[in-house]
């Protein structure tokens, strides 16, 4: 017969035990015992960028693309491309965005989701482009918290070894 898993009255200790052996018993203040187990869960998704694909293929070619509404009376320009216009619903066409912009807002993340914890601290920035009606969210590199400000001029850099992700583009301060 297998031995009972060890018992703890602090949930933190339960969690530590789960990492060691995969099972523990939690003993609550009112005397109840709860058996707690740990199991993994991982998945590979098959994800199509579908109508957003030209944007991500563009990044791999060192091109930053937005989109522009084809309706003559609208012509809204999107800094994050949309294949149909948010304002009037007409189809949009692909355009090249300027690779220079300014910080609309910014932050430095000292924590993050588990997947990104090892990259902290990192900067997130919303970039605005001259003549473009909406923004683009990016990583901002080669700059520390104390240098950043709203309105700061920035420019795009592209990953020479593309991963086909939004992280293939990032911005740095324009020097």
């Amino acid at each position, binding site marked *: 017969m297998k031995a009972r898993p060890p018992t703890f009255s602090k949930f933190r200790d339960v969690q530590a035990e789960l990492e060691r052996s995969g099972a523990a018993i939690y003993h609550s203040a009112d005397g109840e015992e709860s058996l707690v187990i740990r199991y993994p869960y991982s998945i590979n998704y098959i*994800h199509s960028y579908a109508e957003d694909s030209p944007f991500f293929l563009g990044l791999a070619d060192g091109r930053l693309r937005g989109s522009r509404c084809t309706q003559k009376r609208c012509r809204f320009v999107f800094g994050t491309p949309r294949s149909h216009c948010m304002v009037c619903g007409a189809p949009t066409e692909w355009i090249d965005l300027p690779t220079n912009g300014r910080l609309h807002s910014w932050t430095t993340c*000292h924590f993050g989701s*588990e997947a990104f914890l090892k990259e902290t601290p990192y900067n997130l920035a919303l970039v605005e482009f001259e003549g473009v009606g909406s923004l683009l969210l990016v990583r901002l590199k080669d700059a520390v918290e104390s240098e950043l400000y709203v309105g700061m001029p920035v420019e795009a850099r592209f990953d020479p070894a593309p991963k086909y992700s939004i992280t293939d583009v990032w911005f740095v301060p324009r020097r």
Partner: protein
Amino acid sequence: MVTGGVTKFAKAHPSMDFRLMVKRAYDYALKGIPNLTADRIDGTRISYFSDHFSRQLKAASMVQDYLGMNPKGSVRIEWGGATGGECFQAAYEAVASGRMDVCLAAGYETMSRVATWKGNEFIALASDTNFDFPLGGFYTGYYALMVVRHIYEYLRLRRFADVKDEREAQRLAIAEGSRIMSMVSVKNHLNALHNPYAQYPKRLTVDDVLRSEMISYPLTREQICTMSDGAAVTVLCDEARAREFTDRPIRVTGVGCGTDTMRLADRPFGRVPLLPHESAADYADLPYPGVHSFRAGRAAGREAYRMAGITDPNRELDFIELHDAYASSEIQTYEDLGLCRYGEGYSFVERGDPFLKGIDYGFPTPRAGAIPVNPSGGLIACGHPVGATGLMQAVFAFWQLQGTVRRHFGDGTLQLPKPRRGAIHSHAGTGSSVTVSILERGFR
């Protein structure tokens, strides 16, 4: 609304699974109302946010099952952080449409099932996974982006307009904004000292909040709500049955819901949709909403106020339970809900309007009691088990309006003097959907 119940929100409840948590809140709600037995309930609306946290699809069916509600009608409600608020409105609609006479709204979340930073990852999957999530998707980061811009619009350009050096001016403005956000955090944690259901009641100073760990600049740990396990339920019914169940029913007199773009980057720069007490001249040069304000909150407020006949919310509401996932978004939301004009959120805090009278917060609050916001302690201090949160607000607001806070909390400090009308506000994503519901005392 005739009754409600809440479990104590906690980091983890290893001795209760989601079914038992909801059952405890449900039993509490029914306990005080002898005429309201399970057979009088026509159906349910059940809310939880994340299938990732549950790793049990169709978990709402298991709640329905555990409560013994089969074969009555039920549906699961999910709408991000506003899941609980939507569930409340779904139950309202079930009754208002005549489909049900009595509807149970029940919600829960069990977020302790993964480590905190994995939980942050699940929540960040509620951002665009093509364009936003892979950058380091992190909700505190998104809210930091929004408040940095809010501070720029309203503190940099107004309070520090005469500072020449741009970096210096923005640093001063952020320091000022951080100090004021910390006052909100102090308020909510301190109010919660008198709420036995709260997860993190504590006495803090502005300096304590400022010095707590930096999570995403400029937001610190104490300005941010936490992961929780918890459940909450409410029962809504038509007026005839309400009078039969209780002599202190609360009327739902307004419901509103608004939405906005999933991506922050897509938010437009247009005009402010005005509330009745505002004029276009107030905001002549204000690009709206940008990333500094929540158009969804404004839209939800407008719809709910119109239905309830409210023309000046600051004067006509006695309190608000507001979705303060971040101290920053509480301040931004004061403006969206018209408690003050856009741009006045910071001075609204400094004047003391959203504070409770009779509590010493450690700094002056001259207008305390004007319109208490989060008298319960809000999400920052009570916790945020997503699917339960909006319903928790409904329950706390219900007890306020009934005048039964002392009975349920064992402490009457948070009971407002005869409140007549309150609002509950539930908010999702980066403001991609928001609900506002108006509750009023339905008895003399």
